Each structure stands twice: as structure tokens, then as C-alpha cells.
């Protein structure tokens, strides 16, 4: 049995009186994509934030390479090789591409107290990193983030995470708000990261996206792991039902169709 890069053991998380996560145990392996599925409010973002050092688990433990770790903040997680693209934000509209790419880890030149931010180097690396992911329209690191499209910003955030994330890449709904082409692009990035041997945790509400890239699936329902299975172990319908929080989507769809049909052919008065 190979040791997982990242493992959660019986993790609970509550905010004051509100329990959000219950007894979560999960393993994340190198070179694999773990799809985290679940309804709105199921606790997916909270779960990945505890892996990214944003929240501390209320109880339970995190292990990296089999050894218990404790992150005091996002920086600790980053240094341990976990890099995250959060669901909202992550970009600073009035900052340049180069500066926001290196936020918190600015490259410098010079020595001692006279170290200065190396704008040229930052811009070069940032532009190169996004272009590697196919966004060739971005060729000037001085441009402001606010002038980019949503998809370009998302690609920049992912390129940044891949650039700094040596080992574990966490993407919280990276394909939401993206066009078909951009979404396909993100999926290609995920597969590329997996090929490079990274462990990827991928959150999505789209069954097709999940089935395209996922090797391993975990479904959260109301903060608990309701199902944990590998590719091919469940059918598309079963996965859809689980993502809807355990309700039978087929029945729900039939009901909606029946309802629509009734509206289109009103009973003769």
C-alpha cells in the first residue's frame, strides 16, 4: 500500500455552534485526481480550506506522507506544497499580472536591506506560466488583472497554483463561470497536472467534468462523506443522484417533465 500524500483522519470542523464537517476521512494520492462532489452548502469549500491551512480542524488530524502535520496558516500549507485556487476571489483587480502572480512570494534582486521587487523577472515568469497553459493572449505582465476576462483570470490563478504547488493542487469549482472552451481548457490543465505527478483535488457541480478527469470520487452530504469510490465503480446516474444530495434525480426529472407536459397541454376546460 502506497502512503497517500495527504490524508485526513476523522476530521471535524465546527464554527461555534454550527457543525459543518463530521468525521471526514480521506486519502489523496500522487498522480490522481480526487473529485469532491456535493450539493451547495455540503461543506466542500470548508473541507478544502482545512487542507489549505485557512481553517484548523476542530478535531481529527491531517497527515502528509504519513506524518501528522499542523498548519498555522495558509502559508504553512503552501510551504508544505499544497496550493489552492479558492472558489471566490484570489485575484486583485487593480494589481498587475506579475505582482498578483507572486503575491506573498515576491522575487527580489539586490542584497541585505536593499532587496527590491524584481518586476521584470516576475512579469516574465508569470506570462510564461499562463502561456504554457494556452492563454497566449496574455503577453504583458504589467497589465492589470481587472482588464482580463473571467476565464483568463481563472487560468492565471490556476497557472499560479501549478507554478507554486509542488505536490498538491486544490481547485474549488474552477470551471464555474467558464465558457465551454475555457472549461475544457481547465480540464486539460488538471490532466496535465496529474501527468506531472501532482495530486489534484477538484470540486465541481458538473457530472461530465467530474467523470472526464476523476480517478477517485468522494461525495459530501451535509458535511459527512456519503460515498467514496473509484472510477468505474458507479454509473453516471448514481453519481448524479449522489451529487444532488442523495435524491433520485431521475425521479425528480420525471416529475419536472410531467409538470411541463401538463402545462403545455392544459386539460380542456
Amino acid at each position, binding site marked *: 500500500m502506497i502512503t497517500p500524500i495527504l490524508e485526513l483522519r476523522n476530521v471535524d470542523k465546527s464554527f461555534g455552534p454550527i457543525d459543518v464537517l463530521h468525521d471526514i476521512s480521506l486519502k489523496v494520492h500522487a498522480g490522481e485526481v480526487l473529485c469532491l462532489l456535493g450539493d451547495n452548502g455540503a461543506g466542500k469549500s470548508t473541507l478544502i480550506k482545512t487542507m*489549505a491551512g*485557512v481553517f484548523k480542524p476542530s478535531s481529527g488530524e491531517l497527515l502528509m506522507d504519513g506524518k501528522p502535520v499542523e498548519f498555522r*496558516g*495558509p*502559508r504553512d500549507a*503552501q510551504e508544505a506544497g499544497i496550493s*489552492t485556487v*479558492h472558489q471566490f*476571489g*484570489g*485575484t*486583485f*483587480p*487593480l*494589481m498587475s499580472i506579475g*505582482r*498578483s502572480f*507572486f*503575491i*506573498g*512570494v*515576491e522575487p*527580489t534582486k539586490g542584497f541585505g536591506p536593499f*532587496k*527590491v*521587487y524584481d518586476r521584470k523577472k516576475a512579469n516574465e515568469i508569470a506570462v510564461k506560466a499562463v502561456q504554457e497553459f494556452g492563454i497566449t493572449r496574455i*503577453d*504583458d505582465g*504589467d*497589465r*492589470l488583472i*481587472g*482588464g482580463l476576462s473571467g476565464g483568463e483570470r481563472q487560468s492565471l490563478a490556476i497557472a499560479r497554483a501549478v507554478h507554486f504547488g509542488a505536490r498538491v493542487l486544490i481547485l474549488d469549482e474552477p470551471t464555474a463561470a467558464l465558457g465551454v472552451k475555457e472549461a475544457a481548457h481547465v480540464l486539460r490543465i488538471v490532466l496535465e497536472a496529474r501527468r506531472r505527478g501532482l495530486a489534484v483535488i477538484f470540486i465541481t457541480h458538473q457530472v461530465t467534468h467530474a467523470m472526464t478527469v476523476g480517478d477517485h470520487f468522494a461525495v459530501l452530504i451535509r458535511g459527512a462523506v456519503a460515498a467514496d469510490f473509484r472510477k468505474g465503480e458507479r454509473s453516471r446516474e448514481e453519481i448524479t443522484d449522489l451529487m444532488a444530495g442523495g435524491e433520485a434525480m431521475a425521479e425528480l426529472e420525471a416529475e419536472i417533465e410531467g409538470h411541463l407536459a401538463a402545462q403545455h397541454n392544459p386539460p380542456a376546460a
Partner: protein
Amino acid sequence: MNNLSFGNLLRRPEAGAFLGLIAVLVFFVIFGSTKFLEPAGAASWLNVAANLGIVALPIGLLMIAGELDISIGAMIPAGSMMVAVLSGHYDLPIWVGMLGSLFLGLGVGLINGILVVRTAVPSLIVTLGTLFAVQGLLLGFSVLVTGTTSVALTADPLAKFIFGQFVGGSFQVIILWWFAIIALFIFFVHYSPYGNWIFAMGGDKVSARNAGIPTTRLTIILFVLSATSASFVGMCQAILFNSAQVSGGMTFIFNSIISVVVGGVLLTGGFGSVIGIFFGTITFAIVNQGIYFTTFDRNWSSLIIGIMLLLAVLMNNTFRNMALAYRPKKK
């Protein structure tokens, strides 16, 4: 690299402030005289600018980081009174009084910063509270300790030379302090890697924290910086004028905010520059003092400042949108 092209200059945060400064200069040369550019005239607005500028710089940084500090209005007289009471009333060495002033700034800044990061109450409200609290304490204690609201102080010649002399008869030595502080700010904000953190914090605090920036510590440091700068200015004034009063800092609140906003800092954070704040402060001081060199009544200067503020904000919005829309031309 054509970094110096006209378009690139316009997209910088200080573009509006620079054009505003030129406009104000032209205005006063036409309606007044060039006298206010000669040494005696220049001293009048440089003195105002330096005292205001030392406070406006950290206020500007706070605003870039998405915060505000209005307690400086009480910290300026508090810094004055502290040195005057310790070294004037109690006759302690001047250095003790000066350290007292600076530590007072440090203490109030820490309180402001910690309250802001711990309570998530908007910093305007927190510092409004400390503004009144410090003012009350100041008045209460000075009457209790000295029996009056103004205290005389005679600083020794060395302290006077460094912090409170008139250079060339009319230039306050604090002008030199202001220039030195500007240089330090330019280095830290625009060249060292830390400046980036302040802009990120103002752009999106949660994302900045998630990116590993110590936002809590940085916020507290910025509040300490503004309170200490204010007490420093108060301290220098007491040494210069050989006396301190409990009142007289309130105008600094609005004046520093005006200087910073005219200087191109975005009120909601994330955008601005040190040079812009410098231009904004100079512009404000020229309007404030330039009116004496014209035939207009002094009261009109408020009107000019009001109009200038609105124009500056509109202009800064335009330039910021240009910056956002900027795409390099295909080579």
C-alpha cells in the same frame, strides 16, 4: 521598453494629482503673483505641507490597505502635550518627553490595530472611538496634572536643532523630515516586496490572507505607523513653538484624507502611490496658503478645495479605467 511614454504616465495613480498640482499652480500665478514661489512664500505652504504630509503618508497607506484612521486628530495634540508635560511641566530631560510622545503613539496605534483586527468593526468607527477617548483623556489629565490646557516647554538646543528649528529663518526643519520619510515610504511601498502585500490587502483581504500574507500583523503595523507619525508631528510642533495645547489636531483629519484622495489613492483600497500622496499634499497646501497671495478673501479657499477634490476624484476614476483597459499594442 518605453516606460516613459505619455500614455504610461497617465495610467499611473499619481497622474491626476500631478495635473491637479499644475492647474493649481497656474491658477495662483494668474490670480495672485509668483511671490508664493519665492522662498518666503514657498516656506508658508511647505511648512503646512510637511506637517500634514507626515500624517498623510501613513493615512494613505492605510487607505490603500482598505482601512482608515481618524484618531490622528487627537494624537497630534496628544504628542505635543506628552513632551510638554514630561519635559516642560516635570522638567525631565527632553529625550524622555520625546520617547513619551512616541510611545503614546505606539500604544494608541496598537489599540486601534488590535481592535480593528479582533472585532471586525470598521476602522472608521474604531478610530472615531479612540479619537474621542484620547481627546477626553488628554483634556482630563492635562487639567488634573497641570491645571491648564496649555503647557510651556523649553527644549535643549540639540533637540531644537534636529526637530524644531527654522531653517533659513522661515522653513521648519520638519520639511527635511518629511522628505526623508517620503524616501523611506517610496522604497518600502514601491520597491521592497512588502508594498505588494499592502496593495493585495486593500484589493481583497480574504484572498491576501489565503495567499499567505500576514494581514493581521500588517494591519496593526500600519495603525501603529499612523498614530506614531501623528504624535511625532505633535512633538515637533511643541519643540518648535515652545508650547503645547490640548486642541488643534482636528483639521488634520479631513486635510489628510483630502490630500490622499486628491493624490490618487482609491478610497476603497488597492490602488495609489506615495508620489501621488506627495503631490496631493503639496496641492492642498498651495490652495490652503496660496489664497493669501491673491486678492480673494481667505474663505474662498474652501470652495477651491471642495471643487478640486471632486475634480480629482473624477479624473482619478478616468485614469484608473484607462489603466484597467490597457493592452499593449502588438509589436
